[in-house]
């Protein structure tokens, strides 16, 4: 299957496409979790007015399953790309002396995995959004996951600027 694809596009193009798909999944995850985190920390109590109010007024509970699916799919895509990253990106980054950039990438992989482990509880808390005993945990867990996605998105962007596939 992979050989068939590589008859039409170069290896570098193939991995660049995978990276773009990973990035687009991350963008969707970023948007959904940011909406949800803002909605849960600053819930609107009246009809939406300006842009910020409308941003906060989303039905946050409806995002939970989609966010879990997006996280898992983006994680799998990232894990796939990581095999090539380790050889074709990380080694040149280290040779160029960008140690802190690489260090932050290591943190990115750490927090992505920890976030994966938090998803079942996150899903459960949102599926019981009407149960007040989970309100605080749901709110701060959502904010934490949103923070992780923002961190990972920015670090991924920076690492790609330092050394992308095909460069």
């Amino acid at each position: 299957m992979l050989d068939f694809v590589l008859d039409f596009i170069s290896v570098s193009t193939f991995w660049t496409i995978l990276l773009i798909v990973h990035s687009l999944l991350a963008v969707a995850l970023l948007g959904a979790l940011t909406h949800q985190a803002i909605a849960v920390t600053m819930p609107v109590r009246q009809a939406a007015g300006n842009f910020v109010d409308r941003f906060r007024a989303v039905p946050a509970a409806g995002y939970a399953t989609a966010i879990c699916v997006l996280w898992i799919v983006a994680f799998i895509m990232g894990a796939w790309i990581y095999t090539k990253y380790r050889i074709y990106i990380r080694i040149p980054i280290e040779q160029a002396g960008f140690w802190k950039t690489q260090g932050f990438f290591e943190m990115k992989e750490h927090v992505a995995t920890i976030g994966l482990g938090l998803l079942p509880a996150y899903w459960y808390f949102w599926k019981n959004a009407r149960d007040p005993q989970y309100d605080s945990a749901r709110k701060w867990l959502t904010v934490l996951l949103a923070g992780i996605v923002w961190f990972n998105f920015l670090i991924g962007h920076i690492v790609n600027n330092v050394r992308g596939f095909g460069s």
Partner: protein
Amino acid sequence: MSTTTTSSATSSTSSVATASSLAASARVKTFVIVFALAAPVLYVLCELLSMPLFTYHPATNRIDLGWAPGRKGEGPAMYWYGWTATMLIGCAVLGGLATLLPERLINKIPLALIWILPILALGPLAWALMPFWTKG
């Protein structure tokens, strides 16, 4: 046509019902809470104590069980996949075992730990990356 509509409506209703019943289950609650509490703890232990379930060598597609050093002439070794596998399996086992405990014990766990423990985990993980922060 109407059969298809009815069938898809039934399927949609049943999937909603399944999700709702899962979310209402006390055992599922216990499982997800213990899973989430174990995740940052197990991951930090895996990283600090070098406990990957397997080691992957991307240049040769070789997989070794447990921790293995990079082989000379065969490129680097990757442990992250193995740490992730250890964490997920460990969390699932602990979560499963916790469902055997009385619910009142699980109800005593402060739910705030679910978001506090991952934040605390950042300290040792950042410390383990010290060579990256101090080089260059």
